[in-house]
């Protein structure tokens, strides 16, 4: 089985002092910060929030069973500068990993679409591992009316 929300919360409670300070930030900055911390806990590295990632999902969707997701990353996809992998997380799902997409430079472009399940309204987080070792991330809020994970 994959990574559960419980695992992540447990791991996070170790660094809870640092986390507590984040709660005094204003709402929007806090949501961004929580997503960054989530990615840090999952990958062990600090991501950079980037506008090169375009995660397009409906703001409101009637069912959590099949929410469309389109992910496009600005990248030349050359040998020197390409996207190696994109991971997608749904932090409020019972299992937070959604998918990871692996790309090959020159043969593909970093653009995929699929349909995912969401348990409740939440931020969906996408993290791109670039060829130079950096991590880029973005997130988008999706409001679903029904639980798609039962």
């Amino acid at each position, binding site marked *: *089985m*994959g990574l559960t929300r419980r695992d992540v919360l447990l791991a996070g409670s170790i660094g809870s002092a640092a986390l507590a300070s984040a709660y005094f930030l204003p709402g929007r900055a806090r949501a961004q910060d929580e997503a960054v911390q989530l990615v840090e806990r999952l990958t062990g590295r600090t991501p950079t929030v980037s506008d090169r990632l375009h995660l397009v999902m409906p703001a409101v969707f009637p069912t959590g*069973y*099949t*929410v469309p997701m389109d992910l496009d990353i600005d990248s030349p996809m050359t040998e020197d500068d390409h996207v190696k992998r994109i991971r997608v997380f*749904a932090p409020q*799902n*019972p*299992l937070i*990993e*959604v*998918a*990871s*997409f*692996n*790309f*090959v430079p*020159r*043969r*593909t*472009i970093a*653009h*995929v*679409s*699929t*349909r*995912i*399940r*969401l348990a409740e309204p939440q931020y969906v987080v996408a993290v791109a591992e670039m060829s130079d070792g950096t991590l880029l991330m973005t997130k988008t809020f999706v409001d679903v009316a029904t639980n*798609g*994970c*039962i």
Partner: protein
Amino acid sequence: MTTVAPRVLLPSAAAKGEILKVKSIINHQMETGFRHDAQGRVIPRKIIHRFVCRYGGAEVFSVDLHEAISANPFIEFYLRATESGRLEFIWEEDNGGVYRLEHELTVA
């Protein structure tokens, strides 16, 4: 039991260097392992956990799927037409099931 029938949609001919859109879908329940049957027993997890596209024998694109991918997983991605050759699409299921599809592409 319904038969699992994967499908892909992409052109059979392309110009060299062209970007091709590939649409793939496979009819599959994607059973998460969270549901129970009428007797209260857990229905075991059974999902397609990996999708691979090979082009001329080399792996060019792959996806690791988890429980949060919808039933009948649909994946749309893009390939660059580099040479004429065979495209292979492979779906791997829990318990070792494998579904394959082949597609010939002519690049002029």
